[in-house]
């Protein structure tokens, strides 16, 4: 593709947004190194790269959150200086962030009204939200409180919030990491509509190959801060893109199947690794008729029952917001049941009593590791030992040597890359933070390991590692409950698949009998 400039003949439109030799350094690290990028009206540009490739830094420069050290940005062919997000918005740039920028206690429409000029008009804002939501087929309740929304719903609200501003360039940062397969397909349909019918430009940041292959027209691949390739998507193969993204050959079948997004999920089902019948092994986790209600009266769990046997991985599929979080909370002892029981290794465990589940042998990789799984402002060592202080203390006094011993052992065993064990967890990359959580939970040799969205937001390498670790834990006899909105992940790992809908299990199938159509129907709440 040629560089479009002002004054060129029609048919070769001026790029909506360009990066010209953009460079940004953080200390010794070059986050973006002479990045060139172009996106035009009417196209979806994919930016593919692993975590740390410089994608987000690049976008933050477009949004005025970060100032480039060298180079400049051009909008509609004119060089511009973007020094804050308001400037970015005035140039028609809008972004859906990976970590949402909605205010929890406010209602959806109030979030939309924020940053607008003039009088706040509930009726008209609600109407506009409704219009945009309908035009793009995004199901959003303008009057719902953001805190009450599931992650998937929040993302929809976030997208509506951007679209309501009528942007020329619409940037999405890892948008499908929190969406179900169906929601992803829906999103890509919306993006298509945005570029084809409304002639906007879309930038889609992703590390999912399949997503980029299916949803984009052109792809720019970044690695270690540089643009390493730029090509039309048509004709590209997943293997080629993966090679360029990672910089090394990867076997697509095993290693990358998790990176290949949901769209090809039905085709990408891999053969079971070991299909020893597990139904004679002892049940180590039994949830019976669990019922729970949220403080605001919503039903969270509505008679949920499931059984988990030693050494098996049970994948819990379902559209997000159907009780997965409540089930995770229940098994983390932070949710109290109004009815029903939980048994771990044959013994009933009281719900909602802090630490009871952990003591009974339930390990937990929570859905949101920043909020529930770790303390970012405490050190790596502290985070590694916090699950089992008893083993590193004597009569309530912490033994520093013991703490260091455990920390170093886990860091070695789980290949956590960290400068110092005393560094705050915050300073680690996302993949390494997740490894810290995993290491801590597995170090307790739990009977049951609950992994909620364990690979969300991780890059290919980290996903590969996490997947292998979960498999290994199951092989060692741990019962793994894998709660995931990525069907692909479940199909790759699980020995058995259960479907959750409206707080109850609506169906179950062995991995060999998985029928994706039936699964889809059940997730949609239809008997199948």
């Amino acid at each position, binding site marked *: 593709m040629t560089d479009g400039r002002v004054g060129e003949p029609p048919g070769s439109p001026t790029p909506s947004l360009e990066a010209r030799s953009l460079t940004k350094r953080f200390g010794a690290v070059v986050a973006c190194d002479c990045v060139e990028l172009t996106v035009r009206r009417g196209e979806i540009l994919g930016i593919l790269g692993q975590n*740390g490739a410089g994608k987000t830094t690049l976008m933050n420069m477009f949004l005025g959150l970060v100032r480039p050290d060298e180079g400049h940005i051009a909008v509609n062919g004119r060089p511009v200086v973007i020094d804050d997000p308001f400037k970015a918005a005035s140039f028609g740039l809008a972004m859906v962030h990976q970590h949402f920028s909605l205010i929890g206690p406010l209602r959806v429409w109030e979030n939309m009204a924020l940053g607008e000029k003039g009088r706040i008009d509930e009726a008209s804002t609600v109407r506009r939200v409704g219009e945009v939501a309908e035009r793009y087929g995004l199901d959003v309740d303008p009057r719902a409180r953001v805190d009450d929304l599931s992650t998937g719903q929040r993302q929809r609200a976030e997208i509506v919030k951007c679209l309501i501003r009528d942007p020329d360039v619409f940037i999405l940062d890892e948008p499908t990491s929190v969406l179900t397969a169906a929601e992803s397909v829906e999103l890509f349909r919306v993006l298509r509509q945005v570029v084809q019918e409304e002639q906007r430009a879309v930038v889609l940041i992703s590390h999912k190959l399949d997503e980029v292959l299916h949803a984009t027209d052109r792809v720019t691949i970044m690695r270690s801060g540089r643009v390493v390739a730029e090509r039309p998507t048509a004709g590209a193969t997943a293997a080629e893109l993966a090679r360029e993204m990672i910089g090394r050959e990867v076997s697509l079948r095993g290693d990358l199947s998790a990176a290949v997004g949901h769209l090809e999920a039905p085709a990408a089902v891999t053969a079971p690794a070991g299909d020893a019948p597990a139904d004679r092994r002892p049940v180590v986790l039994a949830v019976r008729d669990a019922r729970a209600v949220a403080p605001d009266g919503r039903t969270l769990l509505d008679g949920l029952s499931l059984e988990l046997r030693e050494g098996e991985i049970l994948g819990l599929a379902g559209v997000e917001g159907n009780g997965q979080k409540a089930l995770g909370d229940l098994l983390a002892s932070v949710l109290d049941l109004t009815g029903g029981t939980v048994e771990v290794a044959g013994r009933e465990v009281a719900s909602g009593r802090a*630490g009871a589940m952990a003591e009974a042998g339930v390990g937990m990789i929570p859905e949101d590791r920043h909020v*529930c799984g770790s303390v970012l402002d405490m050190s790596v060592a502290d985070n590694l030992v916090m699950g089992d*202080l008893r083993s590193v203390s004597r009569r309530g006094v*912490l033994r520093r040597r013991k703490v260091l011993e455990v920390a170093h052992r886990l860091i070695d065993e789980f290949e956590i890359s960290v400068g110092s064990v005393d560094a705050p967890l915050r*300073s680690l990359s996302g993949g390494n933070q997740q490894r810290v959580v995993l290491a801590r939970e597995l170090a307790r040799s739990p009977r049951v390991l609950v992994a909620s969205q364990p690979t969300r937001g991780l890059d290919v390498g980290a996903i590969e590692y996490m997947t292998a670790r979960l498999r290994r834990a199951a092989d060692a006899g741990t019962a793994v409950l894998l709660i995931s909105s990525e069907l692909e992940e479940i199909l790759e790992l699980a020995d058995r698949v259960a479907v959750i809908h409206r707080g109850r299990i609506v169906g179950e199938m062995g991995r060999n009998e998985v029928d994706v159509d039936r699964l889809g129907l059940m997730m949609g709440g239809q008997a199948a």
Partner: protein
Amino acid sequence: MTGLDRASGVTDVVAVPAPSPPSPSPGDGGAGTAPGARAWSTAGTVLLYVASLAAAFGISALLVALTHGSPSKVFPAMYDGSVRSFGSLGYTLDNAAPLMIVAVGAIVSTRAGLFNIGQEGQLTIGAMAGAFVALKVHPAGGPVLVLALLAAAAGGALWAGLVALLRFWRGVEVVISSLLLVFVAGQVLSYALSRAFLLREHGANGANLTESDQLSSKVQLPHFGSYPHFNFGSGLLIALVLAAAIGLVMTRTTLGFRLRMLGHNATAAKHVGVRAAWLGTVALLVSGACAGLAGGVLLTGQAYRITPTISNNVGWNGLLVALVARNNAWVAIGVALGFGALQAGGGFLTTTGVPTDLVNVMEALVVLAAVFPPALQEVMRRRARRAAAGAPVAVGAPA
């Protein structure tokens, strides 16, 4: 988590009591350090403090000059009154002791993420409980003194216990309830001082507010040495032991670990089995007990009787000590001594004819000067972090 906890840039490395450098901003790929977010050099920090204090003294001098005083006499007078002689040093130490006790208590609750700011009231109730025991239990003697101090701690804990109850039973914000209970405590004190069966002075007549009887010398804290020689009350020893104990508990024990976890991230703490309500209650009770004990020390070590102004802002100032010390118990020892010196010097200053109000303003300026550098550094750090937000910033990413 409270705003203070974040603003004070609490650092949290096991067994490292000294303020550690600010955490590096997560760079892209976790390797980079953002420009400006680098740790301040020690020299830079010192310089900032010096400049800040110089500004405070400069403004103070200006105020003194504007009110027809003589700046050249004021500052030497403050020095004379606080640290110049052994005698004045004694005032400094006696002022510092209750501040230190209040501060280390405040540190416990703040670290646990519960911003108890009701020390002034907890101290008042503590002093009253102490006085009640000291005056009513006979025969007076050493054990009664110990009993009175314990009663003071229990009184403070009770007052903070109300805060805990409201928080964990009804979800009332700690800041609100602890603050409002300060005023209730004042009313309780007025009531007690007006009823003979409680604390009202014997023989007092009329409906006027009075004081309590004076404590018998047998229930007064021992005082070592006497003016003008080096002297200090045993309250200081209590304060030092308590500060050291809390410093150790916070950094070296599982209890302290859990408290810090709770303060940094209550949700995660609950997920790893911390009983948040129970532990939070413990933290509030400890902070209240400390404030109450400070009241007991004030009573038995300095005031020897309950007056309507027994608390004399010690609760508020102790909170400031914790703030300036950035919630580090070891640092709080030094800061409390600094505050003690400031008050001793200020007290002496008023005897030289400088208006009390002006002295208060000068003290406040010095406090502001002490709080300003860390606040500025935190603001600059955040700016830098925001400017460098190109990285995959973790939670709380500026958006």
